[in-house]
């Protein structure tokens, strides 16, 4: 049971990152590799806010959400929008978002230095709870709850809200969306803003959970999150959650039964197998894209 719960909690972190990631990937069909930098920025800026202003955690989350949203809009404006209409937009967006992420990280280093930073020890009292004979921390439970509720809220948002309808319209046919009077630019921006807001909050929660934030944390999770969104299903929000949990449990099982040195092999092996064993069409109706 402990194993299983450990896996679930580990996976919920992956899922948290992946949900924001897959929102842009799945809906706008763009792979935003600056997402890892946003994750890091959310963590570091969150620490800064708490250290400077001493705000409590429940106030921090909305502040970081706003910060992440602003970053998302910048990413869309700077790294993606200028590429609109280019035949290699997918591919160029990959590179331009890498560049954007690199710039963001070096600016973060300029502001906060390269040292690992942490939240002040008293921001979230570690409480341990016994569930079904296993020990878990309250924070982990909170993160799991946040992941699940974000997934539900977002799924609802995409499926039912006007914004979500706009997103799906753009995903299916951006040209038709423009004809219908949808402000394609604004909806794209909003999607990026949502995605990055989630990414930034994920960074804060992640940092709270492991008590360490350095410039490299986003990078470490990024590859796993890629695995998660492929395993869970490209662009599917519930898939991102389930994929995250599967991966988390698989890794924990790998640690216990295969050997911890091969743990990361599990993530990539799983990713590789899924890609090979299931024709890419199964992940969605999306056609192949030119890269």
């Amino acid at each position, binding site marked *: 049971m*402990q*194993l299983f719960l*450990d*896996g679930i*909690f*580990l996976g919920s*972190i992956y899922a948290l990152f992946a949900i924001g990631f897959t929102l842009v990937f799945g809906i706008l069909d763009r792979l935003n590799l600056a997402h890892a930098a946003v994750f890091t920025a959310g963590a570091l800026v969150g620490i800064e806010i708490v250290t400077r202003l001493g705000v409590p955690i429940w106030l921090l989350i909305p502040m970081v959400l706003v910060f992440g949203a602003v970053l998302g809009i910048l990413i869309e404006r700077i790294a993606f929008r200028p590429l609109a209409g280019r035949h290699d937009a997918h591919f160029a967006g990959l590179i331009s978002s890498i560049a954007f992420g690199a710039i963001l990280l*070096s600016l973060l*280093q300029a502001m906060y*230095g*390269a*040292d*690992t930073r*942490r939240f002040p*020890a008293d921001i979230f009292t*570690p409480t*341990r709870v016994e569930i079904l004979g296993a*020990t878990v*921390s309250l924070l982990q439970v909170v993160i799991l709850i946040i992941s699940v509720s974000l997934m539900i809220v977002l799924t609802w948002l995409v499926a039912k809200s006007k914004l979500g309808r706009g997103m799906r319209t753009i995903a299916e046919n951006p040209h038709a969306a423009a004809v219908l009077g949808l402000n394609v630019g604004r909806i794209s921006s909003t999607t990026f803003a949502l995605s990055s807001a989630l990414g930034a909050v994920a960074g804060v929660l*992640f940092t709270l*959970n*492991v*008590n*360490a934030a*350095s*410039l*490299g*944390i986003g*990078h*470490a999770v990024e590859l796993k999150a890629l695995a998660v969104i492929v395993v869970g299903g490209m662009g599917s929000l519930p898939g991102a959650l389930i994929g995250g949990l599967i991966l988390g449990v698989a*890794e*924990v099982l790998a*640690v*216990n039964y295969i*050997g*911890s*040195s091969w*743990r*990361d092999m599990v993530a990539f092996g799983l990713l590789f197998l899924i890609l090979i064993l299931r024709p890419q069409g199964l992940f969605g109706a999306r056609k192949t894209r030119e890269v």
Partner: protein
Amino acid sequence: MTRKLLSAAVCGSALLLAITGCSTATSTESTAGGGLTGSGTGADCTIDSPIPIAASFSLTGAAAQYGAGQKNALELAIEDLNKVGGVTYALTVEDDATDPKQAIQVFDTFIAAGASIIIGPTLSNTAKQTDPIAQDAQVPVLGVSNTAAGITEIGDYIFRDSLTEESVIPQTVKAAVDKLGVKKVVVMYSNDDAFTESGYQAFAAALKDQNVEVADTLTFSKSDTDFRALLNKAKQSDADAIVVSGLIDAAVPLVSQAREIGIDTPIIGGNGFNSPALLAGAGAAAEGVIVGAAWNSASDNDQNVKFIADYTAAYDAAPDQFSAQAYAGMQIIDDAVRSECSGEREDIKTGLGNVKDVPTVLGDVSLNENRDAVHDALVQIVQDGQFTILN
């Protein structure tokens, strides 16, 4: 058109080859002019020209957090030493961006620019690529943070003041066994980092020597931050202690999470754990962590007290072992320069070979015949939020 381009490219590269081929012959001979030798010895030594000191650290990229502290400490050291008088140093610090390829270029630049000695680079694996270049060009190198095996074996120009894990860890393990009666341990280390892996090997050897049973060996990645799964597995082994070879990035979350899930046994760490960040980051969870280290922040050595005060004043952060070793490195170089009273490469090399009991922030340091540092290692235990000496 393409044909022309190609022939241009071929000619261009041929030209390039010719030029570099020629210049190799005339290269690398000496440092600028002859103004680097002076008169007198030791404290009386006077050298007119400033001695060019070059340092290559990882200021950006994955190892930036170590490089930044090294640079700060080195600049502080140069400032302090230049105040003494007689000998002045001109420091150039370059960034290798945690990329060995960059470091190679940085070393080339330093060698060509006439640096008397090169300090660095930050990472051992980078050093294995850069130090041979300096060795070939007969430029002395002082590593201040390279702890992996095989660094000084690269050649007779390669020195280091950083204690290897082999020289620290056996003392740590011995102290833990003697004082705490540890009999059975779980070993954890990150297996994708040269430093921590060699630390692990030292631990494994030392544990064997002390007849300590290793119940389990677990590995993680240096970028990992969530260790709960591993720790839960470790917990099942019911060991007396957990031995960890990891960097400080891993140390803080690992220690915090171990306590969180209810592991109350001592945690024994290597050099990587020796950082004020452990106390600041893990807080109460750090209690009972045992760290074998080359440097103790709590040491009452005058130089060390002053160093910590100055560093904290200058950079608004407490120094860590990396900073201390960088500072000490410059003190050792100063000793070598003054003993020969020369800033020439050969003389510095000779001087470094004779370093014996030089007082530094690390304590009295000597360099042995293998050009490795010899000084007392300390075994510390965290008590009441402080590193205190165990042995």
